[in-house]
């Protein structure tokens, strides 16, 4: 009996602690709003990555920083684990996920507030220089790598399932670097990846070629927790102002791997 009591007591204490934790989170997010924590994939150049100076940077990070400055908010960056980005968003570790994130219908269905799309994303193939693959038609019987949780993976499971079925093997990797390493090491013949990421990698690493064929089209957006519609509106408003005062185009010009044609706001 004594033991049971101790157990129940311990359980109650744990529950109390848990409750405290969630309350703290809620208040810091809802009331103050002075600090805006941006959730990024730290391995997603040129949209978000660890810069040479050890600070997170990238197109998305710079836009968000500029938007927060405009709104007078403190700006912080939080590196999420891409597979668990939405759990981390729900847990309050960050206030949005904004990192070249492809908008999925399932996200809206799950109740997340999703911003207007800001980037038309295309998927391409990255191959080794001198590869006999010149288009997606050559992929039959080949081994292809794709990163888990990217739009490429979603597409190969959805719209491009027929293409995926023609592969000898589809390897799902847990980082872009591991996809590219598999390609370099010859265990796959091509990597199915977002165009800007492929372009950035090919530019920095000799021996790789991006195949000039746009596969599938999807759009990037920003995810907020359900109920954070006001927050989403505020950010969207700030970004719209950055577009109209030219800051947005200035930031975009710094990232040559991002084609201005694909930036929705610059093509209205």
């Amino acid at each position, binding site marked *: 009996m004594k033991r049971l009591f101790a157990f129940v007591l311990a359980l109650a204490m744990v529950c109390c602690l848990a409750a405290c934790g969630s309350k703290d989170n809620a208040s810091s997010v809802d009331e103050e709003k002075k600090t805006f924590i941006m959730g990024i994939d730290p391995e997603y150049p040129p949209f978000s990555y660890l810069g040479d100076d050890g600070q997170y940077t990238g197109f998305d990070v710079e836009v968000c920083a500029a938007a927060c400055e405009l709104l007078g908010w403190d700006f912080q960056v939080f590196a999420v684990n891409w597979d668990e980005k939405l759990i981390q968003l729900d847990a309050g570790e960050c206030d949005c996920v904004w990192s070249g994130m492809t908008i999925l219908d399932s*996200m809206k269905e799950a109740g997340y507030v999703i911003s207007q799309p800001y980037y038309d994303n295309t998927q391409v193939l990255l191959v080794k220089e001198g590869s006999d693959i010149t288009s997606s038609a050559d992929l039959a019987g080949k*081994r292809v790598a794709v990163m888990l*949780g990217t739009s490429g*993976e979603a597409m190969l*499971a959805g719209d491009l399932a027929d293409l995926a079925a023609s592969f000898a093997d589809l390897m799902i990797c*847990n980082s872009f670097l591991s996809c590219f390493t598999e390609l370099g090491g010859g265990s796959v013949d091509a990597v199915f990846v977002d165009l800007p990421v492929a372009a950035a990698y090919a530019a920095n690493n000799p021996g790789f070629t991006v195949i000039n064929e746009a596969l599938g089209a999807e759009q990037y957006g920003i995810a907020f927790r359900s109920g954070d519609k006001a927050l989403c509106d505020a950010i969207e408003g700030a970004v719209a102002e950055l577009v109209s005062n030219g800051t947005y185009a200035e930031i975009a010009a710094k990232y040559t791997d991002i084609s201005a044609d694909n930036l929705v706001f610059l093509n209205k």
Partner: protein
Amino acid sequence: MTLLTMIVKMAEGLGKTCAIFFLTLLFSLPLGMVVALLRMSKNRIVSGVTRLVISVLRGTPLMLQLLAVTYGPYYLFGAGVARNKLIPVVVAFAINYAAYFAEIYRGGIESIPVGQYEAAEVLGYTKLQTFVRIILPQVIKRILPSITNEVVTLVKDTSMAFTVSYQEMFSIGKQIANSETSFTPFLVAGVFYYVFNGVVDFVMGRIEKRLNYYQ
């Protein structure tokens, strides 16, 4: 995706999880004994080197060792990357677990009183006979709970194989979670691991009971 399809898809990955689990045990349990004997060698150089190797294996993350075994040869020597990831995964797991098992074996062997060796010598046992017939049976009984601990950890550690793109059960769960924006696959994975470990617990419990012939 219905819950049933989810479970079926993840159960397919469970086969790969089991492959890591059984192959790792198959190689690391004997390898651990070899390492333990080297570690207790009277030769200072042999025991010193073994000690260093064990400290590196226990002192660095398994995830790092997985990356090193799989991609290390490519980055260091430009060698190819293995297509069948099961090989580098089992190599990394077996080496890592052997280091832990070695220390458990050593603890067990050193817990046997010196008097038993002396008694065996008086009775005319050779060193090998003493070890195999007298020491080892007692050691196995003593270390079994610690071994169970490691085996249970191994079940959960298999999820790390995805670091090198090996599609075991948990990575399939992650893929479903991503495409469906649902957390259910994690719940399913949790149940799978728990049931797996329930079986491990049961089997190890039975072995312990059978070895408990003096009580």
